């Protein structure tokens, strides 16, 4: 199975990279784009009996390493 973990800064945490992208777009004349947040995507193959087990495993490694829950939130996609 293929798992994708999306990680982004929590909404209350300032995201200067997102802001920089937004201001660059505004400089390019794209004025209708707002609230840009930048994040990262980590993908991997995982062996598991079923989706539920895969999800549990991915959740565990995400909490323990992939994301820092002090500042980041995440979502998991398994296919």
């Amino acid at each position, binding site marked *: 199975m293929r798992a994708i973990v999306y990680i982004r800064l929590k909404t209350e945490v300032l995201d200067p990279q997102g802001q*920089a992208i937004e201001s*660059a777009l505004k*400089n390019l004349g794209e004025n209708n784009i707002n609230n840009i947040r930048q994040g990262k995507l980590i993908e991997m193959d995982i062996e598991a009996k079923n989706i539920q087990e895969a999800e549990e495993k991915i959740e565990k490694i995400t909490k323990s390493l992939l994301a820092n829950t002090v500042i980041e939130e995440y979502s998991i996609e398994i296919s």
Partner: protein
Amino acid sequence: MDIYESHSINKKEKELLLNYLGRDPSHTEIGIFSVMWSEHCSYKSSRHWLKKLHTEGIQVIQGPGENAGVVDIGDNQAIIFKMESHNHPSFIEPYQGAATGVGGIMRDVFTMGARPIALVNSIRFGELTHPKTKFLLSGVVAGIGGYGNCVGIPTIAGETGFDSSYNGNNLVNAMCVGLTTKDKIFYSKASGIGNPVVYVGAKTGRDGIHGATMASGEFDDESEKNRPTVQVGDPYAEKLLLEACLELMQKDAIISIQDMGAAGLTSSSVEMADKGKVGIQLNLDNIPTRQQNLTAYEMMLSESQERMLMVLKPEKTEIAKEVFEKWDVDFAIVGKITETNNIVVLHNGMIEADIPIKFLTDNAPMYKREKIKKNKRKRKLQLLPSIKPKDAILKILNSPNICSKKWIWEQYDRTIMANTLNDAGGDAGLVRIENTEKAIAMSCDVNPRYCHADAKKGAMQAVAECWRNIISMGAKPLAITNCLNFGNPEKPEIMNDFVETIIGIRDASIALDFPVVSGNVSLYNETNGDAIKNTPTIGGVGLVENISVLNNFGSLNIGDSIYMIGKKGSHLSCSTLEEVYNGESSIDPPEIDLYQEKLNGNGVLELIQEKIITSCHDISDGGMIVTICEMIMLDDRGATINIVDNNKMMGELFGEDQSRYIITISPELESIFEKKMKKRGVKYEPIGYITSSQLKINDSIIISNNEIRDAYESLIPSVMNNMA
């Protein structure tokens, strides 16, 4: 386009190749020939002329021809250093191009056994207002910092220039300085038939295939699409490789070692075998790879970073393996030294290449290209009569080539290793040698405006400027490295400039006992036929024997007298003043008298070493007044300056006459100073004195410290912090 052309092997070279081999080459062999015969690896246009450089001196342990040059600094210690260009990759992908440039030059230095102790760089971009400049500048600076900061080597000096000739070809010249003991210097010469050839470092991928041929061709608008050929740097891997190599070097296991730079496995294996006059056999089945199914061609040409090739003593292979495994660095025996004098490449049980090494090295094509001196039309200096000195001072301080580069150097870790002695500023970087009272000064210099106007004079000036910057730190200049950045050498006028540059460097380094110990040539710096200004960057090192003489040096005291060493200025042709007001410069750079240079420099060195003066800066771009402004800004002081003849004001303030310094001195030591200078025959002129604040010239011109600082510091942040 046939397969030879697509490998940048021209018709004549193809005939030569077929003649050498006496058969059709395999695809892998064509690849090997193409990179070994590229300008980048073979120096085919420059080799003949490079031999004319001055490369000797009692301080020289190793001159050009190895991974880097080596100079003696006494007490069984040696400095290993080199500068290298990474121009083409940095234009295509500025962050990675600059980062891998820094990584490559560091490997050249630690390959030879030295721990890197400092990085220096010279970077040049198109006009600050050019749409690409901001992107390139911010990427290059982040890349240099990203790599050096992570490996943990301080970046302590450099220069940044802007000129329209770099609009389509920026320059990144990176220099690394390392320290070792004289009995622990490692060379690339392979020996010992049957000895194992070992690969260490990062895994091989498809990165940068054809980087060496890319660096040997001109750019056109299509080049920017060549991104996949740019290598990606991994400074973390470099740090591990550095520590592992230095640890193994303490274990008497290495016979020869060579960094895998341009043309990767091919050039490193060929060079090692060539130096030792032996053969080498590689079995590619054992190469650690990042991707599956790499072909022999791809492995031989890959420019994946952070890799080394070594020949080990067979009985020490296990020890070596343990060291590299401890540092999480790949280690693989990939071949052996043979007596055939051929490079033989095996893969999947097939012989992929079998080439006599001399065909790739000594017998590679060498061109004595046509050169024609093109007389540049002399234009008369035309300055606007209405220029007011105060406006000119502020305008120059606010111009791209003179203004503060703090925005840049604040992104470089300058204090790691805790030995940086002049972080606050100065003409050259200065690092102490751990556990000693010695320090190494280093600087990178060239003035492309002068070089463009007169290749020979410009080259002499670059060497002299570097020498001067090192002297001003109280260091004895030792030796230089260089990066010769030029346009297409097949154009006779460019080839002519190249040759005159070599002669200029040679003359200056002989006169100043400042020999060339390493270097690099970067040709074809052209886009759509427009060449860069000749840019022979000179990187020099010098030695401070005892840093206690520098105590209290470099700080201005109120009431100190200001003197100029050398004659008053008058030469405004080709000056910064002219550039700032007229855009272009006239074709008449200042004369340089190497005898005078040496006389003045040695005089200044004595003044510093005998603690007679309180500070010293050389006079360069922008003339005397820029030097004085820089000095008073550093210490937040003022200065009062007297110009006797108002008609000569502009020349004295802004003239770029050579071989000059500004010094400050406590008034009670003036008579000793004068006596010493007269004894040496050094000319000097009283200029004024240091005050608590503001710059005052003849009571009529007053500039506040805030005005000076604003002009000097505001330009780059205002451009860069406004990123599109």
